């Protein structure tokens, strides 16, 4: 499928792609409230990349998904994660210094059954986002590399 797939598949991909991305970011952002989290959400976003690669073929997507950019994002996500852990050093490493502070993600959590407030969780939420960034970039690099490699094999077989 080097040149991409049929018009039907392309049209559907263009339609669904955005929804998958939004769903992935939703899972990342709600990691502290609902099942899922940074890793799972990142994997969903990366699956959208995989869908693009399968539908449009590697050569067309490479301009859109740059391996360099993704690997920078991957390292950035990891550095962000560990930075949040370091920022807790006032008490201990990994201390949740944001929660209950009243600021962003700092609302005290309600006790008992409640629908869940996005603005809680403190560093857990922030770390989920860092992990999400890392995972979507890392899995993105992996699917990109795999698709480039399989294309090379295809070319060799044709010769």
């Amino acid at each position: 499928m080097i040149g991409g797939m049929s018009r039907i598949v392309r049209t559907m991909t263009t339609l669904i792609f955005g929804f998958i991305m939004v769903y992935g970011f939703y899972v990342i952002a709600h990691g502290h409230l609902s099942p899922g989290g940074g890793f799972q959400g990142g994997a969903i976003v990366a699956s959208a990349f995989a869908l693009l690669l399968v539908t449009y073929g590697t050569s067309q997507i490479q301009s859109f998904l740059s391996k360099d950019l993704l690997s920078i994002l991957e390292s950035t996500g990891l550095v962000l994660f560990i930075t949040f852990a370091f920022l807790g050093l006032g008490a201990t490493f990994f201390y949740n210094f944001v929660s209950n502070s009243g600021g962003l993600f700092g609302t005290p959590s309600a006790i008992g059954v409640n629908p869940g407030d996005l603005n809680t969780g403190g560093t857990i939420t922030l770390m989920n986002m860092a992990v999400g960034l890392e995972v979507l970039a890392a899995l993105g690099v992996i699917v990109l590399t795999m698709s480039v490699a399989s294309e090379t094999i295809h070319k060799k077989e044709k010769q």
Partner: protein
Amino acid sequence: MSSILMHAPALVIALPLLAAFVTPILGRFNRKTISWLASFTLGLTLLLTIFIAKQVLTNGPIVYVFGGTEIGLTLPFGYSMPIRIIFQIDAMGIFMGLITAVVAFLAAIYSISYMEQHTGLDKYYTLLLLLATSMFGMELTGDIFNFFVFFEIASISSVALVAFRSTISGEPAEAGLKYMVVSSISALMVLFAIGLFYGQYDALNIATIASVMQFTQLDKIALILLVTVLSMKAGSVPMHMWTPDAYSEAPAAITMVLVAASQASLYALFRITFSLYNVTLNTITVGWIIIILGVLSMFIGVTMAIIQSDIKRLMAYHAISQTGYMLLGVGVGLAVLTNPAALESYGIKAMEGGIFHIMNHAMYKGLLFLTAGSLFYRTGTRDLNRMGGLAHNMAYTATFFIIGAAAIAGIPPFNGFASKLIIYESVYQFNPLLSIIAMLVSILTLASFVKVFHSAFLGPQLEHYKSVQEVPKSMVLAMATLACIIVFFGLFPELIVKHIVHPAVMALIDQARYTATILGGI
């Protein structure tokens, strides 16, 4: 300053982790700096480890509660069992930590020149730093699930490092695959054992599980799983098939770290049997199982080593053989754990020998692998039949090789002699036959290294090696440091045994103190 040093147990793993993540970003701008960053970070980690060791050895065990409001608050909100991830550092843990720190730092120093010509250095150093982090984690953690996580990180990073230089023949990839299979099986079994503990006791903290250990049928299954896979990862004989491949195909500096990584698994084996189960298990049976594993490793390892002609493969078989000494020493200690008179008269001594041998082995086997790496760096071959007369060109490497070979063969005044003598003396009182086998293995080791020295360094200068030069400075520096440590330990073994090894042995034996560190009171 003191407030930052309070966090030293966390920083030991946090600094290499941060450096590992910064390396790929830095590598984009300046490729030269990343090797220095790795060496600098691991040097800093070494200093932190020494600081923690000083604290632990003077003031007793340290705990570090991750994410807690206070560093030492293991039981918040009046709970009766710990809920957070806790690092519990006693004399044994930090003893292993010191070995890891020295080995990882010197590996980074050695790599500066050794890996200079290679591509993909950012990945190399990221993996090396991750491997160091995971080894520290395995050795310092007091939480068994946390141990599993670091165990996995160690497996993944070392697999990638073993296969780092995939050549056309594909041998590194094959070794990496073999190691990957072994590692995944081990990790799964460890996870299964942890599940058995968690299902029964609702706890993941080692001290908490130890305090309520019932030694049920399920605990026996968990014990079998843990002993099997941890001795597999330590490279003891019936499960040693991955060791020669992985050790001989990895870059030399990495092989040195891999030796320390397999010792981290050995440490986990001792931690599980002594701190988690202790006297609840049938110490005589399990002790003898470990002794038999040790004797088999010693004997089969060395007999396999004698026939090798690949220098690193030969050394890898010797690494298996030397692991046998550690298992033998500590196994004897475990076998007499319930017999206070025997424990006092020779059990503790045997364990001191075994534990001291861990440190000695990491140093001299590290040195030997680095000299093998130096030979490979200059001659491009690991085949002993193609080498010869290299002492003419590489005087330093030849000297370091003599020191390492004498130490591994147990010749005074080098460190191998000190720990082996303690093992011979104490094991002789337990069972003379075991001691005699250990001595025989030592003689065979000497024979094997005489062969290596003869075929690599002695003889007339070969025509095609005329232009061979001594290796670059950073490699000489790393080897010289190890050689100095070996000679120092060999000259003053009493000092080391009394101040570092004996507290480590006592920390292993005294389970009550281990649990009391977390749960308070006795």
